[in-house]
């Protein structure tokens, strides 16, 4: 699905990612955990194509294509989806118009005709149920006036509509109460198939009780310093990040 090799990226001359290696196959869920400032959000932004970052070294192959050469919109059209940590409010652009434009641009890119109005409405209805999103919200402007939980659910709702091959969930659990967390996680679990994959970026182990990962990676200081199975997350939860920091600071020193 995606193969990240020796990825280095910097912002304003400061190197944040210092050689990331990661291989994700179809059907897998990978969790990336790490303390604040380790580069978790930078990794998701770089993969999604945010232009603020400079990729200085390395390559990313997504479904046999060079991801780093693609524009952000083409990455999305190829099936990459980023659930934002802080979804943007866009006053004046209705959720419906936004989703319809997105679907149709993706379809056009893949040589398909625009979606029929009735099929679109049916799709909206079906996916709304999945994340228990109030139908009133879809009529409003994108994320405008949404609560934190509603914004996160709207991200999962968009993901459900666009059916990406690879979804990156950037701290989707942050700011969620336990009910919202359960809804978001169950949405993800229902969308999981053997043909798609997820990268779940999180600070806490909590989300991983609901979305059970196949692999857990620990990101520290711009590198993946440890990989394992779901037990690694539990270990991390018990010991905290301090031990990791301690261990690798010493190694560096």
């Amino acid at each position, binding site marked *: 699905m995606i193969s990240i090799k020796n990825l280095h990226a910097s912002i304003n001359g400061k190197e944040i990612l210092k050689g990331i290696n990661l291989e994700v196959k179809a059907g897998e869920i990978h969790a990336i955990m790490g303390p604040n400032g380790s580069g978790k959000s930078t990794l998701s932004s770089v993969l999604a*194509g945010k232009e603020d970052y400079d990729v200085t070294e390395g390559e990313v192959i997504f479904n046999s294509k060079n991801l780093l050469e693609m524009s952000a919109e083409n990455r999305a059209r190829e099936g990459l989806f980023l659930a934002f940590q802080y979804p*943007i409010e866009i006053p004046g652009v209705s959720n419906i118009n936004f989703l319809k434009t997105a679907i149709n641009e993706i379809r056009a890119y893949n040589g398909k005709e625009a979606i029929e109005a009735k099929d679109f409405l049916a799709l909206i209805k079906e996916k709304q149920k999945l994340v228990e999103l109030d139908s009133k919200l879809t009529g409003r402007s994108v994320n405008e006036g949404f609560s934190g939980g509603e914004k996160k659910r709207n991200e999962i709702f968009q993901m459900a509509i666009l059916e990406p091959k690879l979804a990156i969930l950037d701290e989707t659990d942050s700011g969620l109460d336990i009910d919202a967390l359960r809804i978001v996680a169950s949405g993800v679990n229902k969308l999981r198939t053997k043909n798609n994959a997820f990268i779940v970026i999180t600070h806490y182990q909590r989300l991983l009780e609901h979305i059970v990962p196949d692999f857990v990676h620990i990101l520290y200081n711009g590198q993946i310093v440890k990989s394992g199975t779901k037990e690694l997350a539990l270990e991390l939860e018990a010991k905290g990040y301090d031990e990791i920091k301690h261990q690798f600071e010493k190694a560096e020193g």
Partner: protein
Amino acid sequence: MIAERSITAQKIIESISVKANKVGFVIEAELTEALQYLETKGIPNNKHEDYKYCNMDAVFKKEFKNIVQEYNEIKNSDVKPYKLEEAINLVVANGNYNESLSDKIIVKGITIKCLNDLSGKDSRIGSLAKSSADAFISLSNAFSGNGIYLQVQKGNVIQMPINIIYINSTKAESMINPRSFIHIEANAEVTISERFANVGKKSFSNFVSEKLVEENAKLTSYSIQEEGTESFSVNTNQVKVGRYATYDNTTVTLSGQLVRNNHNVLIAGENSQSHLNGLFLTSGTQLVDNHTLMDHQVPNCESSELYKGVINEKSIGVFNGKIYVRKDAQKTNAYQSSKNILLSDDATINTKPQLEIYADDVKCSHGTSTGKIDENALFYLKARGIGEESARKLLLAAFANEVVDKIQIESLRMHLETKLNNLY
């Protein structure tokens, strides 16, 4: 100094008075005052505080050196694109109300006349546009065409909107002084759109409209300016709002090399509401200057303003909003907002709120923002597969629609949406 100031004014007067007809509806004293004003104060240049960014003297010197006052006859086919299917269409052609180009629909409660037919019969005509106020009002008082008088009689709620088309067609550099008096009597209601077009050569349109909204009446008005690159205009609205009355205006400026709007609202009746909304989209070397005045003279009134600009290339936008709260105007609630998007590094916006408050128990606020297109929003849309161009269009349309959505005449709103979509 005085002689220096009046050179431009003298030249204009000389070139246009040759072919000008006597203005029938302006009283002699106002006419004398108008000429005196022009002689002593002249056409305002950038030293005049209200024309700081809009040097009209320089515009006349550069662009209207040879005013010839020659016009083409306006034909039905010229007017047709500006007519609205669901409205009563009235035409003011080259400054004169033209009955034969207008719709022949008779609606109960509406009176339509030529302004000159009202000479001496209605002292209200001219009462809101005093020569002493401004050079362009003076020019209108001295040289106005035979414009339109529209009255909605007491208690009549007019369902059908009225569309007044002010259309000019000049053969070469000429000045036109279109004029209107809109009179909404007590308890009457109407929606009026005013569309401005130029189908000829270079023209200067000096438009003046007096709008009297009497007790508990409601006037919803739209000013749609799409006069093209050969057109220069000053558009003055002198509005008086009575007790419990509502005045709403939405002004959309799509084109015009120079467009100066003076929108002055005299809030003269208690418990009234006045709302001004504006949208201007500029490009090339256009200058669009919106000057508004909310003059709160009495207590318990509400006013709001929302002006939005999308400024591209080397064009310049101006918003100057003055809120004047007089000593007696307690419990005034006035709000003003100016939001702008600059699409190029060479584009300029000058925005200035001007609050003068002499009452102590009021709520007045203003806000202004200017920026580029929101990069975070752009990235969010792109991250969902929406291409750069579509994403920009979506964001600009969202910005503009806050104003365009105020327009309740559907065919007019759709016309604007289509126009805007092609502009971005």
